[in-house]
């Protein structure tokens, strides 16, 4: 039965993680010890809202049976409702998990627990798009107050650009990644690939750390902005890498290295692209001329002011 397999598989993952953390435990007797512990750990964690452990076990089983019974078609409303089946505490827990990545702490297994949601990715992307546009606009306002020759305008089209970029990133890149992992499925014996929704979920939640970073980019000190950017990129990419590592480590080293570095590179490209497009550094003589000049509106191409930029 698929549900029982899934439950058993889950236990094995927990046990293997516990084993990895305590290498001194003997595998023979330790696995007997660890399996019930692992089982209890699963029940307590996921049954946090249920209450007593016996009730939690039973309700876990009945919940799994119910999930198996009803699989509404994708044209019904109930199908999509299953992707929004999260509570406030769960969403906050997943956000916390993405902010504090730990090696061996797989985001999908520990936080999603095979119940990916679309609420988190969708609203995190929406928030990030609006925050990018708003803070980019605010930087322009603050820059104009220092240097009145800069022309201020609301630049509302940037909201559209931000939205489209971020949503495409969170849908297309996981699609490519999921497709690639499924294609390489034959090489792996132990661990199946993540479902498409789980990949989208990881990407969506990993973008959360950029929201406070973008707000902090208001501070007009360049090296501080790059520091915050690097920090956010490190946290975000770490979440992705620690999640993908168990899946790719059985593959050949070359494929694993290329895949992980591509993921990190795309993420870095998104961060740097957002920084340059929404937060044009001022004064303008520091910009790379050919790339930026084509996209700059003509009013902003002013000659550099003689006085130094006030920080």
């Amino acid at each position, binding site marked *: 039965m698929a549900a029982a397999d899934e439950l058993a598989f889950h236990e094995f993952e927990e046990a293997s993680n516990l084993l990895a953390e305590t290498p001194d435990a003997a595998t023979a007797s330790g696995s007997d010890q660890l399996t019930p512990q692992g089982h209890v750990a699963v029940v307590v964690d996921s049954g946090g809202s249920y209450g007593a452990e016996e009730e939690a076990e039973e309700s876990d089983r009945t919940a799994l049976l119910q999930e198996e019974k009803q699989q509404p078609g994708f044209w019904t409303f109930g199908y*999509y409702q299953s992707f929004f089946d999260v509570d*406030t505490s769960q969403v906050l827990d997943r956000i916390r998990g993405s902010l504090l990545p730990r090696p061996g702490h797989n985001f999908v297994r520990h936080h999603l627990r095979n119940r990916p949601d679309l*609420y988190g990715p969708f*609203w995190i992307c929406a928030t990030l798009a609006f925050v990018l546009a708003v803070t980019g*606009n605010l930087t322009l306002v603050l820059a104009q107050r220092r240097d009145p020759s800069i022309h201020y*305008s*609301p630049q509302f*089209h940037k909201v559209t650009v931000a939205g489209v970029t971020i949503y495409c990133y969170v849908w297309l890149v996981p699609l490519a990644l999921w497709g690639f992992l499924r294609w390489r499925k034959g090489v792996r014996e132990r661990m199946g690939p993540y479902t498409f929704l789980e990949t989208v979920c990881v990407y969506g939640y990993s973008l959360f750390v950029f929201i406070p970073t973008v707000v902090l980019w208001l501070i007009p000190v360049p090296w501080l902005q790059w520091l915050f950017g690097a920090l956010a990129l490190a946290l975000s990419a770490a979440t992705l890498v620690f999640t993908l590592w168990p899946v790719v480590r059985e593959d050949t080293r070359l494929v694993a290295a290329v895949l992980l570095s591509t993921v990190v590179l795309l993420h870095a490209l998104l961060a740097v692209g957002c920084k340059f497009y929404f937060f044009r550094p001022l004064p303008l003589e520091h910009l790379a001329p050919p790339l930026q000049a084509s996209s700059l*509106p003509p009013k902003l191409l002013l000659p550099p002011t003689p006085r130094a930029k006030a920080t």
Partner: protein
Amino acid sequence: MRSHIREFDSSTLNESVQNTIMRDLKAVGKKFMHVLYPRKSNTLLRDWDLWGPLILCVTLALMLQRSSIDSEKDGGPQFAEVFVIVWFGAVTITLNSKLLGGNISFFQSLCVLGYCILPLTVAMLVCRLVLLAEPGPINFMVRLFVVIVMFAWSIVASTAFLADSQPPNRKALAIYPVFLFYFVISWMILTFTPQ
């Protein structure tokens, strides 16, 4: 009471146009009052209508138009952009709350979200009047204060009407998009600069 019964008995096709318009206008006005003095009541939900939101949205979009033709890329939001943001934002929030398991109907939710734009429309009016005076930091402070107060009013009003229809452990998940929606509208109002 008698006229009420008579309304339900005879069809409203035979009444004069003035009666129809006045009845609808009175309903819209009553709901405006409910938004301005939000208490937990069912009026907005029970007799929902979309006239009020349409009037408010069109007024807001018209006032956010810039008076001169600025270059396309640098301009403020155009009429269509405001319209799309308000209506698609409201639809998205409604879908979100229904997907989370709320028991409010689609149009009731649209109605509430649309009517609660009223404080922000008032803020837009005030901002346009304030902008007729000379620009300066005081001007900006006044506008900021007005927009913040009206933003808070909108959130309180919509929460009073919408919060009860959500399951208790997901209220924050359903209210957060409303917050984002009114924040974006407030941002559009605050950054409005007539040329």
